[in-house]
């Protein structure tokens, strides 16, 4: 009996080897301990055995959790139960990271089943715990296929609980966590799609699981979650009502019982940003901007408190503008958020967010360089300088144009673009099609046009972008010539460049065409991000009269306002300082001298005078003002 327990115990310390355990038990029975085994038979059927085995493995795992971590989990659970936002925030933003660094930097946190006794098997807390557990696996370790499937299931359980409970749930979570939930959901979706698209590296088991995966991480299910959260929270109605200046009572009526709760409102808003991101990842840049129809891009709204969300929003909006060839709009988008990031850099202490933000910022500086090369004009000098500092070499090549510029554009685009995905998996459910994909069976297959089949999404978008860029390639050279003249014959220009006159004229038409962009108009901040007018964004303008090119240039006049305001402020500051400074009275020196000499000071010293009687407080205050 005791011996058997030992065997069980030893075998069960390793959870993965339950199969071996069965064998061990079987052999054990045949090895001369027949009676014991016979007596035990009715008690340990397979299910009980498995349950026991699992239970003991969990106990073993449980005993290995450091006490501080147990204490932390209990405390965390209590904070969630009490809806104590301040304590949840501390546990979420600092406790979790602290213990990750200390105990789990290279291994998983204890599984939810193991810590369940600590939290009274509270199913909601366990879902939230798993959310953190899997996020940790994705960010620090290599998720295996079970992790990928289970993290999806856990997300579904969480959203199911939020959306399909009896009425809105009473749970409250910090805004940052809510954003991280949506952000992580989409991140795991993207990682899954990328992993799924690599057919060759899959094991047999993975192939089977993928073929039976069904809706796991399907585009439809991900979109479904995001749209459901948007609809349930009536976030679009909320934003519109707020813009129309409705009273809080009216807004409460409009958004209903779900939308009134901060948890749903924030999840709704973050889901809009999530849609922007998913559509951009899928290559639908118009729809990405269209879902933002009601969202006003500014830094005043209450939704901008979560910086990571704010930065992601501008990154994806800016990128979509690039793919819509709206380079000036993209530049404005990047400039406004990059300035913000610079201003708040000093306030950011939480490293796990800051790392992500500065990585995104760096990619936006690269995108800024791309746009600035394609639409040369003066934007924010500060941002332009930083961009040139980081990507000076590439920028010089891109701005010079010609064939040589393309590799520089490609390099920066690949570095800074989102991680594009395809909407559908390879045909895991169809073994013949799959094997044809992995290894083309016959030479005829291989020689068939492969334009649609063999291109991964990133390269598809890259090739479209590079085609646009290549079309513009002759423009910088033309521009440098035109800058030297106020009028110039087309023939003469053609001779300079050693090309055919008609070709030069057509390139000029192109140049005119690419100097115009659809742009958002000042004062239309409330309109859709897709709206805009065609505006000339170049400082160099020209027109062709038959064969003569007439050129004009717009220049920026000298700016006085900044200088004037800066100096006014400085003067005011100096003036204030002088006024507030104590007068360098000769009596002050005399006073200290007097103080050392005689303990009773003269009437001029207010400080010693004040505490004597209440009535003199007025005089004291008055003296200070004067």
């Amino acid at each position, binding site marked *: 009996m005791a011996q058997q327990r030992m065997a069980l115990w030893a075998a069960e310390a390793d959870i993965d080897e339950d199969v071996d355990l069965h064998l061990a038990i079987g052999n054990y029975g045949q090895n001369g301990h027949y009676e014991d085994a016979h007596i035990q038979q009715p008690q340990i059927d397979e299910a009980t055995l498995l349950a026991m085995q699992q239970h003991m493995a969990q106990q073993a795992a449980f005993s290995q959790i450091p006490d501080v971590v147990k204490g932390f989990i209990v405390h965390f659970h209590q904070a969630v139960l009490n809806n104590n936002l301040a304590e949840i925030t501390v546990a979420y933003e600092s406790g979790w990271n602290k213990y990750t660094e200390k105990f789990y930097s290279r291994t998983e946190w204890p599984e939810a089943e193991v810590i369940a006794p600590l939290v009274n098997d509270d199913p909601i807390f366990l879902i939230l715990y798993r959310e953190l557990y899997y996020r940790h696996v994705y960010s620090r370790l290599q998720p295996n296929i079970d992790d990928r499937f289970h993290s999806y299931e856990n997300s579904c359980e969480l959203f199911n609980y939020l959306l399909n409970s009896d009425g809105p749930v009473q749970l409250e979570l910090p805004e940052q966590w809510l954003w991280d939930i949506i952000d992580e959901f989409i991140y795991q979706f993207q990682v899954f799609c990328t992993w799924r698209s690599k057919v060759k590296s899959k094991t047999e088991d993975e192939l089977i699981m993928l073929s039976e995966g069904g809706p796991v991480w399907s*585009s*439809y299910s991900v*979109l479904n979650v995001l*749209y459901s959260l948007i609809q349930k929270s009536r976030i679009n109605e909320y934003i519109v009502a707020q813009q129309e200046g409705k009273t809080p009572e009216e807004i409460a009526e409009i958004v209903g019982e779900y939308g009134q709760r901060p948890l749903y409102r924030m999840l709704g808003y973050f889901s809009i940003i999530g849609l922007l991101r998913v559509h951009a990842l*899928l*290559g*639908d840049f*118009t729809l990405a901007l*269209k879902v933002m129809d009601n969202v006003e891009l500014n830094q005043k709204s209450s939704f901008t408190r979560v910086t990571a969300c704010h930065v992601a929003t501008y990154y994806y909006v800016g990128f979509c503008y690039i*793919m*819509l*060839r709206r380079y000036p709009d993209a530049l404005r988008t990047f400039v406004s958020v990059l300035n913000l990031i610079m201003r708040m850099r000093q306030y950011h202490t939480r490293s796990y967010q800051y790392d992500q933000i500065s990585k995104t910022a760096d990619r936006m500086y690269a995108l800024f360089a791309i746009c600035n090369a394609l639409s040369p004009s003066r934007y924010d000098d500060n941002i332009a300088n930083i961009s040139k500092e980081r990507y000076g070499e590439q920028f010089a090549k891109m701005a010079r144009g010609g064939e040589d510029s393309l590799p520089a554009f490609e390099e920066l685009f690949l570095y800074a673009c989102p991680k594009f995905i395809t*909407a*559908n998996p390879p*045909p895991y459910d169809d073994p013949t*099609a799959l094997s*044809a*994909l992995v290894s083309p069976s016959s030479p005829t297959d291989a020689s068939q*046009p492969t*334009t*649609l*089949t063999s*291109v991964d*999404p990133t390269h*598809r*978008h890259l090739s*479209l972008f590079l*085609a*646009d860029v290549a*079309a513009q390639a002759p423009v910088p050279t033309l521009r440098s010539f035109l800058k030297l003249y106020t009028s110039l014959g087309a023939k003469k220009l053609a001779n300079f460049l050693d090309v055919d006159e*008609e070709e030069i*004229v*057509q*390139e*000029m*038409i*192109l140049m*005119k*065409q*690419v100097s115009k962009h659809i742009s958002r108009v000042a004062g239309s901040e409330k309109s859709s991000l*897709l709206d805009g007018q065609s505006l*000339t964004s170049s400082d160099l*303008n020209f*027109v062709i009269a*038959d*064969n003569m090119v*007439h050129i*004009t240039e*717009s*220049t*920026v*006049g000298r700016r*006085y*306002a900044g200088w004037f*305001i800066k100096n*006014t*402020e400085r003067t*005011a500051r100096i*003036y204030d300082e002088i*006024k507030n400074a104590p007068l360098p009275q000769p009596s002050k020196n005399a006073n200290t001298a007097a103080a050392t000499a005689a303990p009773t000071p003269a009437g001029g010293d207010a400080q010693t005078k004040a505490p004597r009687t209440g009535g003199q407080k007025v005089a004291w205050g008055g003296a200070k003002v004067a």
Partner: protein
Amino acid sequence: MTPETRTELIEDLVSGVDRYNPSNVSILEDYLYHQIRSEEYDCLANLAILKLYQFNPELYNPDVVINILLKALTACPLPDFNLCISLLDERTANNNLDEPDPLPTLLPILRGLHSLLYRCRFPAFWTAYRSEELETLRDNYTVECVGFENAVREVAIRAVKAAFTQISTERLGSYLELSGDDLQAYIQKLGWTLDASSSVISIPPNPDNQIEATVVQESISLPQLTKVISHAALKA
């Protein structure tokens, strides 16, 4: 982005969640064929079709895709054509089609045509378009797309209007693939004037072909200075 001709039904599909419902694809496809017949164009509605194809590969209909691309071609220099291509996900062999999929062969051709149009190589566009290689495209697709050639001419006209104040008939003719009386009639319809002796056409002034050198001056309005002024006033 929203054409006036879009009906309420289509608007609901394009703007609502119903755009993801595969059973609505036929409504949008019918609307595309309506656009083909009546020289209308609705980019967002057509992108919604491609979106449905992206999510539901079994709906994929190459003829529809090709027609959408042809319509997007004539929206040049707007990025519509690229936006459509962006949604054409990689797809594995289409075993469920009765005939071989024409798209893999036609797509590079269409991209070539788009490149010529976007780069304003109008004469080269017409040469390529009339070439023997493009016979399939002409006979099976553009012939059905009412006013396709005129729509291409309008692309050229938009570009010419912005860049020229005057243009020779010969040059304009090569851009439009028109000559003689046809060209005369076309110019007249545009309201442009032809100087018979020099055979130079004058293009009426528009914001793009009226250029002047400007100096951009900063303009500071009083509200921007309130902080500075109120600070000074408070201290005074």
